[in-house]
């Protein structure tokens, strides 16, 4: 067995190890990875999301299988410091000595910090690692928390791709971001003058202060403890933090020390095989200068990783041309650049469309006959990127100007079918349309996740994922959206139908638009639609037959056939009197009580015939249904806010109560949970909710699409600093749009993800009214709010509905004899087995048990 040592565990080093392990099916190679950072490889492309939505775990690239691989030794926090080429031994900072047969340098790069005075002060950062971001977050936290401060500013030195990401991060952290760029425009490498001008305007509208054509002269500590950044034109900026993002330099120190040739501007010189002058040393990624050229993007780095993995397993791959295409969203602005973006090819022509009103700039670079696409720049609207890039070097299907015409007539009309098989769909992993089509035709993949798994397309930055769906459709793969065997329509389509036709009974709907008599899938789905469209009580007439047992008995079915009862406690507030009533009911009916995760009280073990009596007492005490049983709004959790908290900046409880009362009873495709936090400390855990609100100094931030459960998700920021009226209107529309268009049992997170255009599209629909439906959404919500009535109070007043609450029609008072309870830890729980296990865990081997004080006192 031979040993390959990989120096560096960044994205490219990790890709190399993965690729080698995949290719080396006989286990010829043992891999030793020496990593400088304390974490295994993570997705640096998505680094900024660490400050908004992602955790370190979300960004991790190494899965459990990788970490458990016997043939891979990963040494974290142990940098390689010396290399003996003759003995083929590498030594680490921790004193580890590892012999190698082959060595792969994947040390990446280090941020370039220009030696301006003050560059080494505290509160001056770089933007490269998760540790950098942690430090930046902490400093920004101190700055924003400082008493008496207005909004603090942060300065980013460098207006390239990474600089704009850093500026966005500062904005996320609550600072006013300034960007200082030496070139006359932002992102000078990727975009041209026209694109740069629009980009500047669009990010300026989002609050970014842009200073171009100036450099940073010095940074100094001012008398109040902040920083003053002096620019080359003499102007001064006050800042709490400064972030250098002025380019990167290959981390080629190790190679230099052992005398390996490096390129003029840094980077270990390698040939097309990615091999250095030493035949046992290879270099890949940002540290490598292939034929003298370095690459700062992940896609060429991955290509190099594949080349070396291939070489070490007997292949003869070469690194050829690198795809330098970029598409990204910076501060919500689409920017894409591909091929010869600056039209440097001989005879190249530029075709431009600059629409300042729509906020879109497009440029295509074509050959002098106007037929072959050489490159392009898209700013503001990059929806045509995937298709256009596919035509790089190919004959265009039409007039270039027509291709960049506004959506609908332009590239959207061309479609994926027109792309040649050689067109690259995923540039990160170099996957062509041909490879995707082959995977689909051979039956290997028939869904987007399967395509990702078997081709790796879309597995890195994810920007091509929507295109994967289009390739599937173009190959004739149809994903059935039928609700069930009774309805060929999706839930959203059926909702449209019910809304448009005015049909108000299931029988009429299934007769006109479905077949058969329905089932436990379509009936509750239609019941939910009718609840939001027709109103009335959920147990009225035929609607009662459509309800799941929970909605039918307005309580939650438990495993032994009894139900649990949850009165609404808006915002989690409850009076002492209210607690006493709940306590008395629990005592009198022998109910097991438990505090829920949503700041309410759940009472378990009620038989159906007991439910009306329990609710009689609850309703008399002023409680109403908590809808814990429904696919509907559950709770709006809150912290105590400004009423009590030293740190609160807004009245979170009042807002939570208002929201809970506004949306109570709203039937939806799945349950809905919400939370309101009174400050950025987020004690209400609002970001784990379908819609979460977090107070800011000036208003409310609205997050959507979070959930706990099977697939936990953090909610994403939809809008910032909203006043209360705008906030409520936006939530109204968010909820109604969800109610109308989501699939059955689809929570808000996958729903937002499924929207073409995702969160941005959602924002356009509900905040900019791009579909012209906001008035209708508003009207529908207004009707919901006006028509709300407590379901349980209505049942208690209707003898026909009360009649339903019996176990046995021929013995109405008789309890169900099969329901039995046992004592468990002093509480009353269902008797019997659960999944073949006794319900009691009293005998489990927890070791010595310390008795409770109450037990000692009563001598238990």
């Amino acid at each position, binding site marked *: 067995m031979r040993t390959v040592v990989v120096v560096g565990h960044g994205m490219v080093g990790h890709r190399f190890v993965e690729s080698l392990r995949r290719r080396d099916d006989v286990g010829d190679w043992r891999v030793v990875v020496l990593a400088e950072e304390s974490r295994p490889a993570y997705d640096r492309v998505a680094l900024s999301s660490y400050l908004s939505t992602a955790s370190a775990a979300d960004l991790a690239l190494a899965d459990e299988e990788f970490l458990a691989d016997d043939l891979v030794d990963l040494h974290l926090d142990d940098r390689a410091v010396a290399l003996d080429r003759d003995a083929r031994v590498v030594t680490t900072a921790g004193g580890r000595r590892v012999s190698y047969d082959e060595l792969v340098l994947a040390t990446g790069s280090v941020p370039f910090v220009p030696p301006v005075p003050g560059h080494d002060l505290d509160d001056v950062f770089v933007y490269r690692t998760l540790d950098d971001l942690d430090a930046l977050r902490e400093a920004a936290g101190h700055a924003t928390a400082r008493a008496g401060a207005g909004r603090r500013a942060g300065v980013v030195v460098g207006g390239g791709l990474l600089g704009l990401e850093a500026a966005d991060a500062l904005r996320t952290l609550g600072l006013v971001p300034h960007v200082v760029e030496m070139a006359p425009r932002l992102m000078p490498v990727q975009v041209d003058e026209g694109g740069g001008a629009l980009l500047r305007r669009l990010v300026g509208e989002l609050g970014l202060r842009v200073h171009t054509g100036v450099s940073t002269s010095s940074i100094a500590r001012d008398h109040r403890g902040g920083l003053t950044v002096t620019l080359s034109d003499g102007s001064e900026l006050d800042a709490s933090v400064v972030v250098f993002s002025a380019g990167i330099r290959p981390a080629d120190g190790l190679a230099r020390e052992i005398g390996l040739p490096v390129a003029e501007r840094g980077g270990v010189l390698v040939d097309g095989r990615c091999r250095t002058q030493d035949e046992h040393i290879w270099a890949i990624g940002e540290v490598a200068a292939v034929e003298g050229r370095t690459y700062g993007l992940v896609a060429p780095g991955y290509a190099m990783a594949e080349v070396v993995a291939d070489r070490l397993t007997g292949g003869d791959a070469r690194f050829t041309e690198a795809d330098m295409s970029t598409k990204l969203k910076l501060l919500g602005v689409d920017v894409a650049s591909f091929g010869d973006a600056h039209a440097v090819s001989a005879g190249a022509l530029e075709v431009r469309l600059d629409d300042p009103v729509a906020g879109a700039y497009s440029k295509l670079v074509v050959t002098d006959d106007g037929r072959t696409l050489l490159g392009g720049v898209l700013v503001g609207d990059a929806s045509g990127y995937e298709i256009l890039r596919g035509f790089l070097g190919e004959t265009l299907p039409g007039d270039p100007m027509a291709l960049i015409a506004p959506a609908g007539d332009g590239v959207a009309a061309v479609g994926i079918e027109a792309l040649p098989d050689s067109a690259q769909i995923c540039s990160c992993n170099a996957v062509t349309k041909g490879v995707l089509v082959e995977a689909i035709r051979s039956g290997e993949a028939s869904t987007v996740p399967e395509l990702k798994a078997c081709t790796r397309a879309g597995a890195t930055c994810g920007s091509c994922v929507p295109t994967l769906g289009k390739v599937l459709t173009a190959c004739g793969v149809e994903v059935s959206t039928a609700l069930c065997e009774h309805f060929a329509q999706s839930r959203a389509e059926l909702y449209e139908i019910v809304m448009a036709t005015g049909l108000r009974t299931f029988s009429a709907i299934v007769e006109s638009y479905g077949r058969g008599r*329905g089932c436990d899938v379509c009936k509750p789905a239609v019941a939910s639609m009718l609840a939001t469209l027709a109103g009335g009580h959920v147990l009225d007439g035929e609607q009662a*037959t459509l309800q799941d047992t929970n909605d039918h008995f307005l309580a939650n079915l438990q495993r032994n056939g009894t139900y649990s009862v949850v009165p609404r406690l808006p915002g989690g507030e409850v009076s002492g009197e209210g607690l006493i009533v709940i306590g008395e009911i629990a005592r009198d009916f022998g109910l097991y009580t438990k505090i829920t995760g949503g700041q309410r009280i759940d009472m378990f073990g009620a038989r159906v015939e007991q439910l009306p009596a329990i609710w009689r007492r609850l309703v008399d005490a002023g409680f109403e249904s908590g809808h814990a049983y429904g696919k509907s709004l559950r709770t709006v959790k809150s912290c105590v806010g400004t009423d009590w908290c030293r740190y609160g900046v807004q009245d979170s409880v009042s807002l939570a109560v208002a929201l809970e009362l506004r949306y109570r009873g709203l039937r939806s495709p799945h349950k809905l949970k919400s939370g309101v936090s009174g400050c950025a400390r987020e004690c209400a855990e609002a970001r784990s909710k379908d819609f979460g609100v977090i107070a800011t100094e000036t208003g409310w931030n609205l997050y959507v699409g979070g959930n706990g459960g099977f697939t936990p998700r953090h909610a994403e920021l939809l809008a910032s600093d909203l006043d209360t009226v705008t906030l409520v209107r936006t939530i109204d529309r968010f909820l109604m749009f969800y109610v109308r268009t989501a699939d059955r049992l689809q929570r808000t997170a996958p729903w937002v993800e499924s929207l073409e255009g995702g969160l941005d599209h959602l924002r356009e629909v509900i905040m900019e009214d791009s579909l012209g439906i906001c008035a209708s959404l508003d009207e529908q919500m207004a009707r919901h709010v006006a028509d709300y009535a407590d379901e349980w109070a209505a049942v208690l007043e209707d003898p026909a509905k009360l009649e339903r609450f*019996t176990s046995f029609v021929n013995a109405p008072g008789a309890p169900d004899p099969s329901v039995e309870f046992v004592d468990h830890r002093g509480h009353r729980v269902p008797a019997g087995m659960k999944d073949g296990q006794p319900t009691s865990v009293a005998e489990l081997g927890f070791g010595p048990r310390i008795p409770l004080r109450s037990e000692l006192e009563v001598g238990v």
Partner: protein
Amino acid sequence: MTELADRTWTAVCPLERIQRERPVGALVAGEPVAVVRTHDDRVFALHNVDPFSGASVLARGIVGDVGGRPVIASPLFKQHFALEDGRCLEDADVAVATYPVRVVDGVVQIGSQ
């Protein structure tokens, strides 16, 4: 038909008391039974205990059809039971007992097994 004459019949309730496709529970000789009235006014009776959970809940399930067969879905774990013979559609080895049903003078009667 002599066999039928030997059965014990328990009157449960008027047919009108049972909403179409919304079953009710009944006690027949001490056993819990789910009584189902379909959309076309046929009446079926099945033992009420869901064999997968042991809970007496089938009468609280949703009634419909699967592949053209009238079924009731257990409210606990959603398995479907054919109304005609009690067979579970998801697991051929599982079935619930069914009972003969007749309607006499508008009253539903359930026979012993």
